[in-house]
Structure formats: structure tokens, C-alpha cells
């Protein structure tokens, strides 16, 4: 405690952050599309990107693995050409920085539980079963659907239609080229191939292409009709404790998910007041200031139905609607109900790097894999001078994390800024 030497790797961003003005011309022109993790994989971004619009510093970064020039060794450099600030630097390397510090605060956060591990909930199988974080992005004005509750099945359909349109265009061009070349219509060729009067290779290929085009057009028409008939999601189910309070995965309660389900249900209703939600839970944990009142308001104003029952299984009907099977402990029956969309309130779990960080800093993790703290010394890890705040020590909501951040700062300040001799004593309060 009091004298740590830390070696830090500053990863190359391939953009000089002192020069970049964050104007975004580079991303506009970058030819490479990458799955956007910020939008929970629901949208696309470019290979040169900013993680999210309000990110700080407001500076772009090249995703080296995906970049044509850096990752694939192809000639590109479009971003460097359009950058007026001359900030793009393909030669940048990772830098090692050495810091000498008196105290360390671990604020490395958490990860969201991957529900693929619970096969009965069908997250991998059923398009319209999403996680709360994915739903959050769907609700967001800056998200992939600009805040409209388009169902993932319809988003997939849209992507299909786009692909099909490309196919139809391409096939159409091929057919048209043949028609122009021979001055004959495809229908004529098709008829004659079918009747067996034309058997040469070129005619056969022509007929096959024409048939493919007809099929693609029919398919496109069908999908377009389906798309036109599809509405936005109106009937939502929220499933609580997905991966939490479940002895197979995590025994602990993730603390904040009851409230984010209520919040998401309320926002969905505010966006479209035909939306109604059911929240399936064991206990609805609304424990902060105004939370219980908010929950009640959700029931009264946003039509939220709170159902006590653990969901056993989610299946899918032929129209892609998820069916929720559950035991209602209040009516003592096994029931099932069809919804437009199901949202899984996934657990808050230790981030994958926690164990490695714990080893690096010489601190212990608890039985759940979070950094171990003491109930009476809530910011202290097992090693003096190293503190931990926020969800790195266990699930908590935003106000608690913010309060803890200040507390961790106070604890660290006692080590680095106390008058001599009192720092060591400060650590061992209780």
C-alpha cells in the first residue's frame, strides 16, 4: 500500500487523439461494415468508429481486426484520405506506460449473463426472444430501429428482403443481357426449353436463370407482403431472474433487473400506448427511493401486469410469436400465453477478466466471482491500498455505483493524501 508500480498497455487506436476532431467523415466513407456490439449486435457500424455517439473522448478508433488495410492487408486508406485533420495513423503501436501510484481503484464493471446457456428459454432459437439490453437498444432513439418496437423477426425479414432485392436485380441484369443479345424474350426461351425444342447449353442456362429470377421475385413479393402485414410489438413479456437466483447458474440476486424491466415496460408503453406488458417474477424487488411507487404507477398507468411465477419454457408458434409456459403460484395452475416479444432480464455476472485482474492485483474474488469485499469495509479489497467500487464488487444500481465511486475516492485519498502516519491506520477502521 502507498507505492504500487503499474505497467499499463495503451492500445493503439490508429488515430491520433490530439488531432482527431470527431467529425466522422472517416466513418462515413469507410467501406467496411462490422456488427455493432454497442447496439447489442442488432445494427452495423464501420471499421473506423466511435463506440457510441456521446463517447468520451470524442475520438475515432480503427477496429484493426476488421479494417481492410490493417486487418486484411488490402489497399484502402480511405479514412486517411478523407481526414482533414490528418489524424489517421496506420503506424501507431501499442504503448507501455509505467505509473507509480499510492492506491488503486478497481471499477471494471460486470458483464451480462448469456442466456444461450438456458436452452428452455430458446434465446438462440426464437428470434423474438431478446435480452433486456437488446430491448434497451430497440427502445432507444439512437438505436437500430430509432425507438420503434420492430420485432427482430421483422428486422431479419427486412434484411432478407434487401438481400433478395439484390438477387433480383442481379438476375434481372443477366436475363436482360441475354434478351438484348438474342433479341428474344425469356418467356419464349423458357417455353421452348420446357417443351424440349431447345436443348443447347446456353438456352438451358438462360432458362434456369429466368426461372431463378421468377422464383426470387415471387419470394420477394411474399416477404414484402408479410412485412407489410407485420405490425410492431404490442404484447410483451418480461422474464425475471434469467441466470440469477437460479442454483444452476448464479445463486445471487442481480439487484437492478426488476426495476429495469418495469422501466422498459413503461417506456415501451409511453412510446406506443397500445403496448401492454407482463412481468414474470418470483419477488418484484423495488427497494430504492420511489421504486415501489414507480412499480405501482407502472401497473396503473402503463398496464403492467405482475405475474408471480417462474417461467418454465418458451416455445414459438408458426407466426414467430413466443409462447410463455409458467406456473402461476397464485392461481395454482400451469398456464401458457402467447406474446409478440419476450424480454429476458439477464443476470449481472462478473466480467470475464475479473479473475485475471484479481491475480494481477493480488486480491481475492468471492464465491460468485466478484472482487471480495467486507460488509463493514465496503470499498476495501483483501489487499490494503486496492479498492473496488460498483458492479465489480457485486450487482448494484446507478445511484449506488455513483455513491460508491465517491466512497472509493475517499478511501484512496486517505491513503495518498492523509497526513503522514495516519494512512495505515485509516485502512483498518473496523
Amino acid at each position, binding site marked *: 500500500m502507498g507505492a504500487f508500480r503499474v505497467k499499463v498497455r495503451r492500445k493503439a487506436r490508429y488515430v491520433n487523439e490530439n488531432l482527431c*476532431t470527431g*467529425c*466522422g*467523415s472517416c466513418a*462515413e466513407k469507410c467501406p467496411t461494415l462490422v456488427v455493432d456490439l454497442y447496439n447489442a449486435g442488432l445494427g452495423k457500424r464501420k471499421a473506423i468508429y466511435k463506440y457510441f455517439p456521446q463517447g468520451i473522448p470524442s475520438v475515432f478508433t480503427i477496429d484493426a481486426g476488421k479494417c481492410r488495410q490493417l486487418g486484411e492487408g488490402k489497399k484502402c486508406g480511405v479514412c486517411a484520405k478523407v481526414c*482533414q*485533420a490528418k489524424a489517421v495513423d496506420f503506424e501507431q503501436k501499442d504503448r507501455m506506460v509505467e505509473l507509480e501510484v499510492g492506491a488503486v481503484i478497481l471499477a471494471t464493471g460486470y458483464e451480462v449473463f448469456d442466456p444461450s446457456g438456458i436452452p428452455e428459454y430458446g434465446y438462440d432459437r426464437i428470434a423474438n426472444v431478446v435480452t433486456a439490453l437488446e430491448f434497451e437498444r430497440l427502445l432507444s432513439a439512437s438505436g437500430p430501429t430509432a425507438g420503434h418496437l420492430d420485432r427482430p423477426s421483422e428486422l431479419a425479414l427486412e434484411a432478407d428482403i434487401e438481400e433478395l432485392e439484390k438477387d433480383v436485380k442481379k438476375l434481372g441484369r443477366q436475363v436482360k443481357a441475354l434478351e438484348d443479345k438474342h433479341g428474344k424474350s425469356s418467356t419464349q426461351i423458357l417455353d421452348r426449353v420446357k417443351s424440349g425444342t431447345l436443348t443447347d447449353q446456353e438456352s438451358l442456362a438462360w432458362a434456369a436463370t429466368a426461372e431463378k429470377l421468377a422464383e426470387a421475385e415471387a419470394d420477394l413479393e411474399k416477404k414484402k407482403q408479410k412485412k407489410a402485414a407485420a405490425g410492431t410489438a404490442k404484447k410483451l413479456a418480461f422474464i425475471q431472474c434469467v441466470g440469477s*437466483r437460479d442454483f444452476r447458474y448464479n*445463486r*445471487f*440476486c442481480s*439487484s437492478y433487473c426488476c426495476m429495469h424491466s418495469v422501466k422498459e415496460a413503461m417506456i415501451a408503453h409511453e412510446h406506443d400506448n397500445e403496448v401492454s406488458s407482463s412481468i414474470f417474477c418470483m*419477488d*418484484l*424487488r*423495488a*427497494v*430504492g*427511493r*420511489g*421504486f*415501489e*411507487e414507480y412499480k*405501482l404507477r407502472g401497473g396503473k398507468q402503463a398496464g403492467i401486469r405482475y405475474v*408471480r411465477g417462474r417461467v418454465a419454457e418458451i416455445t414459438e408458434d408458426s407466426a414467430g410469436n413466443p409462447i410463455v409456459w409458467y406456473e402461476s*403460484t*397464485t392461481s395454482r395452475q400451469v398456464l401458457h400465453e402467447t406474446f409478440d416479444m419476450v424480454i429476458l432480464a439477464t443476470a449481472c455476472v462478473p466480467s470475464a477478466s475479473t479473475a485475471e485482474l484479481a491475480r494481477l492485483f493480488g486480491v481475492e474474488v468471492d464465491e460468485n466471482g*466478484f472482487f471480495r469485499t*467486507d*460488509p*463493514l*469495509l*465496503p*470499498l476495501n479489497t483483501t489487499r490494503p491500498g486496492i479498492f473496488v467500487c460498483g458492479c465489480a464488487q*457485486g*450487482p*448494484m444500481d*446507478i*445511484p*449506488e455505483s*455513483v*455513491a*460508491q*465511486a*465517491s*466512497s*472509493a*475516492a*475517499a*478511501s484512496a*485519498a*486517505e491513503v495518498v493524501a*492523509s*497526513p503522514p502516519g*495516519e*494512512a495505515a*491506520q*485509516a485502512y483498518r*477502521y*473496523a
Partner: protein
Amino acid sequence: MFVCDCGSNIAGYLDVKALALYAETLPNVVYVKENLYTCSESGINEIKAAIGEQNLNRVVVASCTPRTHEPLFRATCAEAGLNPYLFEMVNIRDQCSWVHMQEREDGTAKAKDLIRMGVAKAALLEPQEPIQSEMDAKAMVLGGGISGMTAALALANRGYQVFLLEKTPRLGGLLLRLSRLGPSNADASELAAKYAERVQKHPLIQVMTSTVAEEVKGYIGHFQVTAVRNGNREEFGVGVIIVAIGAEVLQPHGLFQYDGKSVINQLELEERLKSEDFSAGSVVMIQCAGARNEDRKYCSRICCMVAIKNAIALKERNPDVGVRVLYRDIQAYGTENEAMFQRAKELGVLFLKYDPAMPPRVEPGKVVVFHETLGRDLTLPAELVVLSTPLIAGPDNETVSKLLRVSLDENKFFLEGHVKLKPLDFATDGVYLCGNAHYPATVREAVSQALGAASRASIPLSKKVMTVEPIVSTLVDEDACRGCGLCVALCPYGALEVVRTEKGRKVRVIPVACKGCGVCAATCYRHALSVNSYSDQQIGEQIRAFLGE
């Protein structure tokens, strides 16, 4: 006048060339420049050069938001020798290009309106000087419970002198009445004693028991406190104040046949456990007694854990004691609490859910409750019934709220400055909060909040001199002021006071405490008060410019 493209952020959606040409036609405008990025080094240099070469006495930038960029442009003006408050900013990005992306013409027209208004106001701007105030680097902590003691220690260990005021004769607060703490299983009294000793021995902490603050005057950096200790008045000055006055446990008179003997509350059970005065063979606990109902809507956050902790204690003393907990939702949030809940179940504590529409009925020696899953009444033996009652706001909250001019919520708990981002600050500068005074909290949470409040308080404490923006309220027409005090009552920051002067009662502005919100100026029907850079005249001129008069 500088008009910014903000790359394509503005220029992509508005006709910036047209805006620049338009600005040239406006009265008093002698120089117009369009920049790709006004905030870039070259843009900044252009502003500086223009101030010198053109002998400018006002600068207007039409670009993004003052929230992020006004300080930069003001500093630029200052560097070029122009008083930084002779600068005006027009937000044509957030208010035009971003919100009217699809309407280029209308968006450009709106930007013209905003620029015309900004120029009109700029002509009337007056130079201002930053306000400086010294910091009295001492703290007062109200409340000598675990929160207050923790906060006092954290500040004292940083080298600040602390006055720790406790209303009762003893330090320790609610801990003194509890048995053991969950989940640490620490003895509550021992913990309180350990902290109390540390606090009392600390050379920088002045412990004042049996003491209440009677009067607090002043503002951040300069609070003048009058405290009453055993009938004697004492005065001292501090720079910051932390409110840690805790809460009370509801006494459930009139609920579930409460009699304090065979029907008691959790606090009374703790006292019995502490004094080893416990013999019942069957216990039924009832959750939400007096909470989550029409009168008291809120969930008191910690009572489920208190019940679980005490149920475990009973089972560990004697596994044969039947313990049943009747609940609505078990609020064992997080890792430790849920683990405690599971441990209680392993020890054989039975948890039964009840419907508030059909509450449990307490009868002599038993409790009858409708069991939802079985669909019928259950009769549970109960030699002792323990009611889990909520923490309620203490009796002093209203007094302290008035004393410090800080807010309470609808349940009379102290209300923080921002529920998400400022959980430990009040809206009033220099006053902070933690522990049960804020909302029911576990010891873990109270300690964490107390350290956090100390951290927040140490930010101003660490500055010898505070510099404050001069965009504050000013008494511009002293003769007009009648000292009515309407503005004083409405000021959310305690930045106004009525004082006696030679001319009679007059309002006085405390610039350091003022945030320039303008409530006072808008309220004063005598127009005696005005906010610097937002005077009636300046705003009026902006409105006239908008209307094209």
C-alpha cells in the same frame, strides 16, 4: 461573429454560407467568419486575431452547446484581452441542425433567428469579474451514528477539523439498540463502541454529544453555526456540512394487535436477543407492517434482511424454534442478502407469501393466514409475533431541512440533488447527506455513503479560495426593494437573505451560493433583482430581435 460548420454536423444540414452572409447584415456586426471547426486551434487563433485586428468589443459564436464549449470561447476572449463575459454563444447545432436534420430550409431560418437574437443580446452585455471566496476548511457532521462517525473519521484522516454533533448523550445511533449485524455477524454495540473510541481519540474531531444545531447561517465556505449543548450556546464556523441524522423505526401501534409483549417489532426482538431475554418456542414474523400501504407507500429496503438475520439468529440459538416469515416480496437484493435468505431457508425458516388484500390475522398464540398456493387458511402457532416495521423519517428532519435550506421527499427523508448522478449532494452547495437520513440503508450501504459524502465534501474543503461564475443575481435597484422576502422564500439555494440597512429592510445576494437560476429576478415584482448577463433589458432585446421589431 463566428459561424461554425462543426464538420458536417452543422454544415451538412444547414446552409452555413447563408448564415454567415446573413450575419453580416445585422446591426453592430463588423466581422463575420465561417470556420470548419471554430473550437479547433486554427478557429481559436482566428478569434484571437480578429479581436486584436478588428478591435472587437463583443464576440458571438454560432456553433454547438455552451455546456461544453462556452468556457473555451470565454477563455479565448480573455486571452485576447477582452472581458470573457462580453461573449455570447448561439447553439445552432443542438437546436437547429440536430433537431431539424430533414428540414434544411426551416432549420436555416431558425438558425438565422437565433443568431439575430444572440447579436442583439451581445450588444448589451457588460463585463463581469469572477467572484472569489475563501474556504473555512472545517466540517460539521450532524449525527453520531455509524454514518456520521464514518464521515467524520474520513474527513479528519484527511487533515480537516470536524465538529461531530450528536443529539443524544451517546455516540452510536441505531447500532446501540441492535444485536448483531447481517451478514457480517458483528456485534452492533461493539462496532459502535470501536468507532466511538476512534472518533473520540481523533485530535481533529470535536465530539459534541447532547448537542443540536440551533441556527446555521451562511453558505458554502462560510457557515456560521450556533449549537446548543446542555442548554449552553456555542458558535463556530465551518465550510461544509454533512447530514447523517439517521431515521427511526416505526412503532406499530394499532397494527396486528401490537402490544409490545407477545406482539413486538424487530427492534424490540433485537433488544431481547441482546439481553438474552428470549424463550418463545414459535415465532411468526410479518413483513411490511405499516409499509407499502396507502399511508406509507414506500418499501423500507432493509426490513426483509432484518427479519432474515433475526430468523437465522433464532434458529442458530435453538433449531427447534419454529420460525415463519409472512411476506409480500422478499427484498434480498444483491449477493450477500440473497445468500442470507438462502441460509435462512436451509436452517428451516419457512417463508410464506401473503396477499395484502387478505392480511394475516393475529390471534392469541397463533396467526391465521391465507396461503395462496394451497388456496386455504393456515393456522400458525405463534408464542411471539414480530412485526417488521419500516424505517420512517426522524422527528428532526423538518427542522434540519429548514435550518440548512435543503429538501425533503414526500416521506420526509432528505432528498439528494439528483437521484442518479448526485446521490450524496444536496442542491445547496456545501451540504451533503448519507445513511438512513437519505433512505433506509444497510450498514454496508451507510458506511459506503458516508465515505462518499466525505469525499464530496473534501472537494471544496481542499480549495483555499473558491472561484465562482459571476452569472449571479444582483440587487440592481436597492431603492425598489422593499425587503418583502418573497425571493428569499423561493430561492432553492439559500443565496438570498433580508438584512437591515440604513434604508430599511433590503435583500442581500450571497453570490457564492447563487447559481443564477433567475427565480428571484422573475419573482421580484419591483424589478429590484436581476441576473448578470440575463437582465430584463438583455432578454427583452433578444425577444424584440426575434419578433423583428
